[in-house]
Structures are given as C-alpha cells and as structure tokens.
C-alpha cells in the first residue's frame, strides 16, 4: 500500500502531503525533512527509487515539483510511477497545463483529485475521464450550494438590518 504522498518543490518546500498510515505531526515533519534530504540531492538520470527505513520511496520530477510516494518493500515500483503519472495527467487536465502555482493556490482541489485516485493507500480509479467527471460534479454541487447559501444569507442580512 501507499503510506504517504508528498509533493516537494525543488527548493524543498512542501506542496502537498497526504498520509495513509498514521503518523503524528512530529513524525510527519521528520519524514519530510529526511526525504527531501534524500531525494532532492539526487541527480538526473538516476533511478526513481530510494530505499528508506525498510520502505521504498518512488519519486518522479515534473518541472520543479517532485512527486513522492512511499510504499512497502514488496510493492511494484513501476506501477507507482504510473500512478504518479496518472495523477499528474489528471491535474494537468483539470488545471490546464498545471504549474506549481496552481497547486499552491488551489491546494484543496489537489486533495480532492488525489482522493479520487487513491483511497486508503490503494489505487482506485484508472479512468481519467471518470475522475474529471466526478470532480466536476462535486465542484458544481458546491457552487450551487454556495449560490443558494449566499442568497439566503443576503436575504437574512437584509432582513436583520
């Protein structure tokens, strides 16, 4: 299973974290520090796998972002690389040629998309279209609800004045 997903910028800034195994906040900070030391120092044209405390971390760099996933020793590394690529493609499709800033300012959206791809550390949705459809449906649901809410609150606000 995937134990956690971390997105790191080349400067070591964290852009997204998702933990599928229980880690306390202290452990999380420690893990991120250790991994950024391990991964960001690796040059190009090296393999995408790092062994770490009996686990394996599969990472892949897209532009200035490192996508890292930690898996068990007997999991399939190449499969994880494909999942990472899948995730990036969906992000790309959703944001329209995604860049780091998109993730910074829409960090919740990135979470929602990741939640459609992975659950409980398992891969769940191989179809990019389905993910896009589900996310769009959720977005529209939220939007309509918000419109309603705002109109109601407006009404209340005016009524109380």
């Amino acid at each position: 299973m995937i134990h956690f997903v971390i997105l790191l910028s080349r400067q070591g800034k964290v852009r997204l974290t998702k933990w599928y195994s229980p880690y306390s906040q202290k452990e999380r900070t420690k893990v991120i520090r250790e991994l950024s030391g391990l991964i960001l120092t690796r040059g190009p044209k090296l393999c995408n796998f790092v062994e770490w405390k009996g686990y394996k971390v599969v990472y892949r760099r897209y532009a200035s972002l490192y996508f890292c996933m930690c898996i068990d020793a007997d999991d399939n590394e190449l499969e994880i690389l494909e999942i990472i690529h899948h995730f990036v493609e969906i992000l790309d499709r959703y944001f329209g040629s995604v860049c780091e800033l998109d993730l910074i300012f829409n960090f919740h959206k990135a979470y929602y998309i990741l939640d459609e791809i992975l659950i409980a550390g398992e891969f769940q949705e191989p179809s990019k279209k389905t993910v896009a459809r589900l996310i769009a449906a959720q977005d529209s649901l939220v939007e309509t609800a918000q419109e309603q809410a705002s109109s109601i609150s407006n009404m209340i606000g005016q009524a109380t004045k």
Partner: protein
Amino acid sequence: MAGGSSSSSSSFSTAPAPSLVDSLFQRSLDDLIKALRSQPAGAEPSLLSRAVAEIRREIRSPDPDTKAVALQKLTYLSSLHGLDASWAAFHALELLPSPSPLHKRLAYVAASLSFHPSTTDVLPLSTHQLRKDLSPSSPPPFSSLALHLLSLSASPDLALHLAPDLLPLLSPRSSPSSPLRPKAAAAALRTLSVCPDVAPLLFKPLVDCLSSPDLRVVSAAVGAFAELASSGDPTPYLPLAPEFYRVLAESGSNWILIKLLKIFTRLAPLEPRLAARLVDPLCDLLRRSSAQSLVFECVRTVFSGLPDHDRAVRLAVDKVREFLASADDPNLRYLGLRALSMLGPRHSWAVEESREAVIRSLADPDPNIRREALHLIMVMVFDSNVVEISVLLVNYAMKSDPIFANELLDAVLTTCRRNVYELIVDFDWYVSLLGEMARNPHCTRGEEIERQIVDIGLRVRDARPELVRVARGLLIDPALLGNPFLCRILSAAAWVSGEYVEFSRNPLELVEALLQPRTSLLPPLVRAVYIQAVFKVLAFCFSTYIDQLEISQLSSLGNSTTGGASSIVESNTAAAASCIADGIAGMESTDGIATVGPLSENDEVEVHGRARNLLGLIHMLREILTWKTEEQGFIKDNRIGEIVNLLQSMFSEELGPVSVNAQNRVPVPEGLVLEENLADLAWTLTEDDTAPSMSISFSLRSHQHGKTKDAAASSVRSASLLAEHRKRHGLYYLPTEKDETESNDYPRANDPLLPASQGDVPEDLVKLTKQSLIPRKVKHTKPRPVVIKLDEGDGVSTFPSTTVKESKDDLLSGAIHDALLGEGKPSSSQKRYSDKSSRGRVKDIADTGESVSQSKENLESGNREHRSSGSKSKHRGHGKERHRSPQKNEEKEEKNHRNSARSSHHHERHKHRPRGEALLNVAPRAPVIQHFLL
C-alpha cells in the same frame, strides 16, 4: 454543537468571542498564502504564529462560514508548514454535520489530516455523523468523504461500530455501478486490518466483489486481498485461489493483474498445484505484455513464488537480462538487480549468466544501483570464491567515491565475519586483507577492523604470526598516524604486536615504531595502548636476553668439552641477544627517553601512568647492561632477572575470547539491588552530553601559560625526530627537495585517485573477475586453522521482530479462517483447538478423496466456459453454492457478533472459536473448495 462551542468560547476571558467584525474582516486562505509568499525571508515563524492565533480565535466562531475558512487555513498550515492541527480535531468535528457541501468537504479534509486513530480522543464522537453520511440515503459525495475519513483514521472501536454500515455500500444490489463500491471495498480493507473482529461480517461481501462486472470493484477487491495476504499469514486466502485464478484468466487490466500476481506470489509457495497451474499464464504474460510494470511483477512472482518451475524461471531470467541491459533506463537496471537478488543461492547460475552486467553495475553513476549490485554480489559469496570477491571489492573500494568505498568495505567485513569467520579458510590472507583495507584512504570503518584484528588474534592461534607482520606494516608507517579514522586500527595493531611479540622478527623495530614522533597525533587512549605495547615488548626482550645469558653462563661454567656445533649455536643466540640489548641501550639513550620522558608528565592519566611504568622498567633494566662487562653481575643480582621473568610470565598468559553469556554465569551477589529501569539515570546522561568524553582531562598540573611555547619547541623537535625515523626505515613518500620543516603536514598515505583515471573503471572491474561467482569445489592446500568458538550462534545477530504486528496479523488471519469456516490448515490462532477439529477432519479427508476426480471435471468444464466467455452462470453457481452454507452461519454469527460487540469485543474471538469447530463438522464441503480448480 455550534451553541455549545460558543458558550465554551465565552468562558475564555483572554480571547473574546469572535464578533461580527472578525467574520467580516477575516483573512481568506488566499490572503494567507499571499502573505506567506510575499514575506521576507526569516519572517515566516512570526507570521505563522500570528496566523495560528488568528485561526484559534476565528475557529470558535458560531458562524459556520468563519469557522470553515479558519479550518481551511489551518489545514493548509498543518499539511504544508507542519504545524500541529490536532488541537482543532473537535472543531473539524463540529463542522462535519454541516449541510453545505463546501463546509462538509473542508471539514472532512481537515479531519482526515488532524485525526490520528490512537491519539485523537474526540474520534468516537464522529461515529454518529459518519454513520449518517455512510447511509445510502445521503448523497454519494458525502458517503465518499466519510469512507475516506474512515479508511484513514479508523480506530478499532470506530471500525467495529461502523463495519455494519459498510455492508449496504459493498453490496451490488443497492447501486449497480456506483463509484462508492470500490471505495467501500478499500475502506473495508482498512477496517479489517485495524479490527480483525469484523472479518465475519465484511469478508463475504468483499469476496463477492471479485465477481462484479465492474472492473473498478474487482480491482479494489483484489487490491484489498493483495494487501491482506501480503501483510500477514496468506494461508486463510488459499481457498479463494480458484476465484483469483478466474479473475486472472478473465481480466485484461494491468492494474488488476499486478495486484493478482502479488497475491499469487504469496499463495503459490503454499500450494504446489496452484504453482503448476500458474506457469502457463505467467509465461504468457512474460512473453506478451509490453507493460514493464506487469513484466516485473511476473518476474517477481516467478522468482519468489515458483522457483521450481524451470521453464518460467528461464523466461523470467531472460527478461531480467533485458532489464539489466537497458542502458537508458536506470529504473529497469535497478529492478533487474533487485529481481536477481530474490532468487536464492540455488539459482546462482542466473547471476552467473549476467555476471558482467552485475559487476559493471558496481560502477553505475547511481549509488542505489551500486548498492543493489553490491548486495547481490555479497549474497553470492561462498567459501570457494570469498577470496576473489573480497579482493575485487577491496581493490575497487580504492577507486570509488568515499561513501561507496566504505559500503564496499562494510560488505566485505560483515560477510567475512559472519558466523565467526565461517567463510574464511586462509586467515593469513584475510589478515593481510584487513591491513589493506586500513590503507584505503576513505576507510572509516576503523572500529570494525579493530574489533576483527583483536578477535582473530584471540580466536585463531595460527593467524598470529601474520597478524603481527601486518600490524608491523601498519605501525611503522608514519603516514597512517594522521588519519583519525585509523587510530582504532592502529590501537589494535599495537595491542597485537605487544601481545604476540614472540612472533615478531624484529622487536626493536616495533619499539621504535611505537615510539615514533608522530604518535603524538594519536588520541591519548591509543597512546596508552602504544606505551603498554612497548612495555610488553621490552619485558619480552629482556626476559629472552636473560634466558640466553643464563644458558650461556651455565654452559660456559659447566664444561668446555662439548661439541663445537652447539657452542656456535649458543654464541649465535647470545650474539643476537646482546644485539637486542645493544639496541635497547641505544633506544634508551635516544628515542626512548626522549619520547617517553615528556609523556610521564602528560595530562591524560592513562598515558601518564603507563609512561611512568615504562620508565621505571627501563631504569631497572639499565643495570643489566653492566652485566656484560662484569662476569659475576648476573649471578650477583639475579633479583632483576626474577622480576623480568615474573613480568614476562604475567604477559604470557594467553587471553581468550569471552563468551557472550559469561555475564549470566556470574551469580548476582546477595544484597545487590539491580534496577530494572535506568530512566533515573537519564539526567546524568543529558548533563554529560554537552562535553564529549574524549576531552575529560584529569589535569595534574596546569601549565596554561607557556604551553604554546612548549608546543612550538616540541614540534620542531618532533620534526627532526620524524625525519630521522623516516630515514632509518627508508620511508620516503615526498620528494626530498621539499622543505623539511613542513614535514609535520605529512601527506595522507593514499591520496584518492585522480578522477581522470576513473574512466575505464568498469572494464577494469570486469577484467578483474574472470572467475565465476558460482560456488565450486576447491581443494584447500592448507587446512583451515582452528577458530575458537564459545557459544553456539556466536555472532549471529538477532533480528528485532515486529511482535505487535504479527500478533495482530494472526488475529486477522484467525478471524478470516473463522469467516471461511476454518477449513484447511488451522491458523496459528486456532491451534489451541486443532486437536478437537482434527478429529472432525478425518471424515473430511475421506470425502475429499472421492470428490477430487469429480471436481477436476468441474474444473475443466468451468474453465472452458470462462474462455468461451459470456456465460459465467455456471461458475457463479459454484460461487453461490460455496457460500451458501457459510451464509446461514454468518447470519447467526453476525447477531452474536453484534451482541458481544456491545458488551466487550475482546472476549468475542474466544467465544466463537468453539462454534467454528462445530461448523467444521457441519460443512464437510469446505476442504473441497481447495481442490476445486487446482
């Protein structure tokens, strides 16, 4: 809930309840992100703490919008800036029931980040809301959020309470192609793994998911089983093998196939018939598939699941060779090496076939690949090739970068040490190899080499002469003294040459080496060892000298008529002895006093004490020198001779290795209270932590002033002494025209290789080993010397076992056994009852015997049907039949389960054990399932 929170917030006098103004002027997440991005470097901590203070105020607002935004900001800060969000768990909980999808979504994300299954105490409060959102009547997005939260932060209690609520989501009837079913399967997996007690409830629906027409559901279920089978005992899943096999035959999705293969990797070793059936489909996939991930998974399955099926292994090895040969993809090279290391030593031919690629990988630019290659090579080490491989690696360590060089040395050291040097036949060779390792410029493994040098000295009597020779080589080289990583090795060398001085060809040279000027660079404790070694060497020399004198005196006194030959021998030995004495006299006048003298005033007590000892000995022995001139001196003052002999006999008592259990054999004296817990001592440790132990100085005198002068003077003196020492031993590393006064900055013995010469390293490497890695019989010219072993398993490391996890897995597999009606072998948690159930099984076996042939027919027809596609009805029929009998019992079980869950779920496992045993008799069909498709 909102009301409750506002009343509680008003009780805080320091932080006033958030007002309308707060909500109006609340900073949004975007504002916060912009502020964080535009702040100057270094201002982040203050900005963060201000933001958190703000959030703490806002989050108590009764207005859900304000609360939601605060929560959103906190989520951002905690997940990206590592701030603690656990304090806000309750506030996330408050927002969960919100009817607004936006708030709900935020609340769930916040909860999944801040909830921790074991530390969040408000977790039980979420049970009700989760149940509500999981119910089929709530909108699917809500259920999806609840499933996510359940799968991330399920505590055993929560899992137990919510497992029944997963059932409707898992069942195919409620929503034929709902996106929730795969999610529910994944959540069920987590629920099962945190709380094995729910197995009877969730296992069957999970199995049903395998036959769903929706590929995502199948994928989720297969993923769940792959996780379950690989995290614990796979035996309980063996009865499901036919079902998995069917999915393997039908499914075309690589995602599913990879997971399936993972399951088969665990199951195949348990059931030879399954392995035999897997060969064909696996070979097919290996040949056909273009997806490397799938090919690699096949290779893994073949290597670790079916190592006995040569056809499959052959094909997989070919694939691995392709991987290793892929020049442009480091990932494949890495995985190829990994795959090879999964093969046991039995298939060493596979490694041999790609020997060149493996050895070439030692020079790969990627350290991870190099490490993997090293690991692989070390697995292939046997007593027949240990010499070749070790020499290859030690030589290569000279050329590689410092980190990897030490990994190489480590690998050689640990492999050779294994099981009290069981691989080593020729200890002379190994000892000289240790010496070579010490000369590696990158070597930082001084401690391990020190340990082994001393250990071999103690254990292997026959290796001692060579050990002393190697030690001499290390000791006389002044260049090694400057390297702080080597001082431990030098300390061992000094100890060895002192302890086994009788094997030394030239003890005098040893003394000189031990007292050479650059020893001042050594840490005090090592110097102490050096001086002690000098002491031993001197004692040895004089005692032999006195022995010689005695013999010659006796012979000259006794008779002058003995044969000429013997007198010649005697005169020779006497001459040698007098030579020694001369040398000692010389030494004493020059080096000895010069070096040891100042040491007797050294600050370090160890050095100080030992130097004093040594000086005392030398003063006493001075007398001896006069004996040569006075014939009667020896007889007059035999006292000294006695003392020297006493000293020598003291040192000549042999030291041996100490058993690991030696401490246990010492009885604890009465009245001695041994503390179980040493936590009280923690404070002493923390106090000492600041000062490293090396610098403890029991300063005898304080010459703070004038010290620099001393140092300068001594450096000039030692420079000249060093020059002399080098001259005498012909050790010139530098061109002589270099300024002599700079000689204190001695170059390191082995400068790292120039990068230019590293180009052709791989070719060198490959050339270096034309030998095979395959173990072969070699005739040992020398018999292996005796190695003293004290304890069985001496030196075998014990692996820390993950007992907690194991026990949990056992619980889970036990529970699943129960869920599957406990057929097959009893799992470990069931063993207690196995004596009872085995009686029941005798009958079963008779039944199975009959049904085997029948079931084979079924199998054939069933398979044909799968391949002709379309009608799965017959198979389904089997599936139903198989589960029909459990179903009744499970319903019963479920009821029982719920009752007991209310009282205390801990006792429950024990409660339905006996029932499981009873079911064994009821359902004789169960073992048949195993034979069904195999």
